[in-house]
C-alpha cells in the first residue's frame, strides 16, 4: 500500500498522470470505495487491501474524457473488463496509465459474518502481504478466520494471476483457484425444469431494483440503458410487477452475453445477495460449447463469437442440421 502511494505520487509529480483512480477508506473498516486523487497530499487516503474488490475499469469511461492521463489500479481480473471496454471504444487506452496491482483474492464480509462473527469493528491482516489468517476485532473480542475462507466466490474460480493489460506491475499475485468455474451452472442445469424455475423465482424475487448490479457492471456501459429509454415502452417496466422484475435480470444477461468477462461485480455488489453471476456464466459456458473457448477481454482486438460476421459463418440450414 505504501509502495503504491509512493509510486502514484511520483507519477503525479512528474506529470505522467493528471489523477489517480484507486480506492480510499469507506465509512466502515471493510468497505473501501473507488476514488480519484488529484494531489500527492490526497494520496494518504489511498488504501489497497483485501476488501478492495471494486473493479475500477468502468470508471475509466468518464476518466477517458478528462484532460491528461489517469493512473488506474487494476487487479488481474479487472484488466479483462478494461480490455473489453477498450474494444468497445468506451475507454481510450492512451488515456490510461495502468498499474497492475497484485492480488491474493478479495474478501467478502458476508462470508466472515456467516461464520458467526458479528459486531465487527476492524479486520486485520487483509493487506496484500498479510498473514494466512485474518484477525477480526468484534464487540465480543477477537476472532480468527482463514483468509481463504473469507474470499469472494469469484476468487475461488479465479481466471489467473496474469494482468491482461498494464503499464507497470506492483505487488505479487497468488493463484487462488480451488473450484470449478462452471460447477454451479452445471448443478443448476441438472435441476428439473420446475425446480430450476422455482430456484430463480426465489432468488430473483429478492430484487429491489436498486440497479447496483447495472451500475457496477463494466459491460453495462450503455450511455442510455434500454430500461431508462422512452423508445421501447420498456422504461421502468421492470419494477411494475414480479414478472418484469425477473425479466430485468434476464434481459440484462442477454445484453452482456459475449461481452461479460465474468468479473463477478454484479453478485458482489448485490445488497440482496442474489447470485446474478450465474446467468452470465451460463452464457459463457454455452458460448464456449457452441463456438469454442472464448474469454472476453483477453485482448482488446480479438473478435467476439456472438458479434462477428465472417464469410465462413454457417448458413442457418447448416446450424439446424447440427442441432
Amino acid at each position, binding site marked *: 500500500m505504501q509502495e503504491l502511494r509512493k509510486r502514484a505520487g511520483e507519477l503525479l509529480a512528474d506529470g505522467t498522470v493528471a489523477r489517480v483512480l484507486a480506492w480510499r477508506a469507506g465509512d466502515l473498516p471493510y468497505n473501501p470505495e473507488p476514488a480519484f486523487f488529484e494531489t500527492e497530499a490526497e494520496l494518504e487516503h489511498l488504501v489497497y487491501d483485501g476488501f478492495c474488490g471494486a473493479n475500477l475499469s468502468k470508471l475509466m469511461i468518464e476518466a477517458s*474524457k478528462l484532460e491528461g492521463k489517469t493512473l488506474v489500479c487494476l487487479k488481474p481480473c479487472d484488466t479483462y473488463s478494461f480490455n473489453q471496454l477498450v*474494444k*468497445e*471504444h*468506451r475507454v481510450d487506452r492512451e488515456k490510461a496509465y495502468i498499474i497492475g496491482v497484485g492480488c491474493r483474492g478479495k474478501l467478502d464480509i458476508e462470508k466472515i459474518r456467516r461464520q458467526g462473527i458479528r459486531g465487527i469493528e476492524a479486520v486485520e491482516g487483509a493487506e496484500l502481504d498479510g498473514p494466512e489468517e485474518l484477525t477480526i476485532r468484534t464487540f465480543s473480542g477477537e476472532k480468527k478466520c482463514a483468509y481463504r475462507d473469507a474470499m469472494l466466490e469469484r476468487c475461488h474460480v479465479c481466471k489467473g494471476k496474469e494482468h491482461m493489460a498494464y503499464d507497470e506491475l506492483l505487488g505479487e499475485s497468488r493463484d487462488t483457484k480451488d473450484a470449478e468455474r462452471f460447477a454451479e451452472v452445471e448443478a443448476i442445469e441438472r435441476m428439473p425444469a420446475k425446480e430450476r424455475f422455482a430456484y430463480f423465482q426465489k432468488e430473483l424475487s429478492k430484487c429491489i431494483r436498486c440497479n447496483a448490479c447495472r451500475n457496477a457492471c463494466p459491460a453495462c*456501459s*450503455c*450511455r*442510455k*440503458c*434500454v430500461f431508462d*429509454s422512452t*423508445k*421501447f*415502452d*420498456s422504461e421502468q417496466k421492470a419494477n411494475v410487477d414480479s414478472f418484469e422484475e425477473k425479466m430485468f435480470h434476464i434481459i440484462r444477461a442477454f*445484453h*452482456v452475453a459475449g*461481452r461479460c468477462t465474468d468479473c463477478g461485480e454484479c453478485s458482489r455488489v448485490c445488497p440482496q445477495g442474489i447470485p446474478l453471476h450465474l446467468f452470465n456464466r451460463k452464457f459463457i459456458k454455452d458460448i464456449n460449447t457452441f463456438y469454442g473457448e472464448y474469454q472476453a477481454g483477453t485482448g482488446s482486438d480479438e*473478435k*467476439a463469437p*456472438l*458479434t*462477428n*460476421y465472417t*464469410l*465462413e*459463418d454457417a*448458413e442457418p*440450414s*447448416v446450424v439446424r*442440421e447440427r442441432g
Partner: protein
Amino acid sequence: MQRIGVFVCHCGSNIAATVDVKKVVELVRMEPGVVWAEDYPYMCSEAGQSRIAEAIRTQKLTGVVVCSCSPRMHEATFRKCAERSGLNPYMVEIANIREHCSWIHKNTEEATEKAVILARAAIAKVNLNTPLQAGESRVTKRALVIGGGIAGIQTALDIADAGYEVDIVEKTPSIGGRMSQLDKTFPTLDCSACILTPKMVEASANEKITLYTYSEVEKVSGFVGDFTVDIRKKARSVDMSKCTGCGVCQEKCPSRKTPNEFNRGLNTRSAIYTPFAQAIPNVPVIDREHCIKFQTGKCGVCAKVCQAGAIDYEQKDEIITRKYGAIVVATGFDMIKLDKYGEYAYEQSPDVITSLELERIMNAAGPTKGHLERMSDHRPPKNIVFIQCVGSRCADERGKSYCSKICCMYTAKHAMLIRDKYPDVNVTVFYIDVRTPGKNFDEFYRRAVEEYHVNYIKGQVGKVTPQPDGTLLVHGVDLLDNHQVKIEADMVVLAAAIEPNPDVRKIATMLTASIDTNNFLTEAHPKLRPVESPTAGIFLSGVCQGPKDIPETVSQAGAAAVKVIGLLAKDKLLTNPCTAKADVLACNGCSACANVCPYGAISYEDQEVRAPGVREIRRVAVVNSALCQGCGACTVACPSGAMDLQGFSNRQMIAEVDAICR
C-alpha cells in the same frame, strides 16, 4: 392518432370458408385507431382496390391494414394502390390471414380468433408507422458471370447480344466447363465439342465479352446495380499477349507426372499445360506446384524452347477491381466423391469407373484415344455393368436425397454407343427407375433396349468384388424376377450423383445468396422466379441451382440473361427505405453493429452530439442506406437499442407482440 382502415379479403373461399370475415370486421372496428373496416371477396381485384382508394379519400385514412394473403403476393399491389390515392405506401401493412391462418386451420372459431389477433398486431404496428421515402441508386451497365461452362457462356452471349458488357470469371485455365469433357450428347448423339466450341469461340471473339480465365472472385461488396468485385487473376506464368499457342513448351516439359484433371486423372499431363486441344484461350498455364523450375529452381526448359519469349516465371497474381450492375452464378457441378461407397470397389479396382471417366475413355482426345478398354490391362472389356443412382435418391447420409436427373439418359447413351461400336460386348444396366421425361428421351431409351438389346435389370447392386483373375463379380438383385443376380463383369461404370461445385458455398456467402442443404442456390420463388436469387441483382444459371441437362441449362442461361438485361436497361433503381438508422444520442460507439453487418454498411465517425446537458464529440455509428439491406442483424446486436430498423422498429415489433399477447 392514426386513422386506420382495415380491409378483410375473402379470397373467394380461400379465407372466407374458414374465417368468419364479417366477425373479423366487426371486432377490428374496436381496435385503437381503426375508423373504417370492411370485407370484400377479392381485395386484389380492381374493384377491391378501388374500395381501398375510395376509403382512403373519403375517410381521410392515414394508415391501411389489409387482411389477406402473404405480403409476398400482394403487398406491392396494395402499397401501389395506396400511393395512387395519395397515401405513403409504407403506411400499408398486410395481416396474412390466408397462409398463416385459413389454410392451416379447420375450425372456424379458432381460425377467426387467430385472424383477429393477426389483424390486431398489424393495426398496432400501423399505429406506429411513419411515412418512408424510397431513395434512388444508379445501375452500372456491366454484368459479371461466375463460371465459364455452357451456362455461363450462353448467359454471357445473350447479355452481350443485347449490347451490354459482360465479364466471365472462370477458375480453370479454359472456358468450356463440364460440357467440354463430354464425348456425345443425348438424345441426338452429336459430338459435344462440335456444338460447344463454336460457342466458346463466339464468346472469346465477342468484343462485349471479357474472359478472365484461371481467375477467381475474391471479394464482393455493394448491392444490386452497384456491385464492386475483386477478381484474382492467378499468375499463369505465361504472357497471354506473346504466346502463340504452338504447344512446344508442353511437348518439351520434363515434368509429366501430374494427374490430368481434364481426363479425370486417368492419365497424366505436363506441368505447363492447356487442359484440352480446343481450350480458349489457347494459352497454357504453369502448374507451379508440379513445375520443376518452381519447386527446385533448376529447369527452365519451357522458357528456352518458347520462340515467342512468352514464359514469365516472375508473373504475380493480379487483383482486378470492377463494378457490375448484376451478377450471374453459373458455377456448375462435380461428381460426388465415392469414398463412402466401398461396396462398389471404386477405390480398389481401376476397372470400376464413373460415367464421366467413361466419357473421357470414349472420347478420341481422351486417355485411350477413344478405344474402349480396361484401365488396368488395356484389354477391351466383354461384359460391362452400369450401376445407376450411386449416391442419388439416397436414403442415408452417405449420398444425396435428390435425383441427379441426367444419369438415366447418359447411361442409355453410353450403353447404346458401346453396343453400336462393339456389338459383341454385353451391357447390363442396374436401375431403380428409368426416368426419361423430355423431348425424344423415352424414344431414346426404348431404342437402347429394343434395338441395341441393352440388358436393363430393375434392382440395385449390393457389392462389386474384384476377382483374382482381374474380373469383377457384381452381386445384384433382380426385383422383377425376385432373385439374386451375379454377373461376371470386366468393367463397372457408376452413375455417381452430381453435386454443386463445392466452391459455391464460398461464393454464395460472398454474394449473400442463400443456398439449400444440398448447396444448391435457392431461387427467389421455385415456380415464378426460378432464375433469380432472393438477393437482388444475383441471378442463377445452370446446375448451381439444381440438376439439369444441357438443353435445360441453355434455356435457363437465356432466362437469366433476360433478367440481367431487364435490370441493366434501367437507369435508376428505387432503394428499399426500410434500412437501419442509429440514434446518435444512445449510440455507445461499441462497433457491435459494424462487426455483425454482412454488407459492410456501417461505419463510425466522430460527431458532435448535442442534447440537454450533452455537448461532446462522440464516436457514433453511421449507416450507408444504399448498402443496408434491412436485415436487422445490427438492431439485435446493439446493446443500447440505438440501432433501429425503419419500418420495423423495435417499438413496432414490441407493439405487435403486445397486441398478440393481449
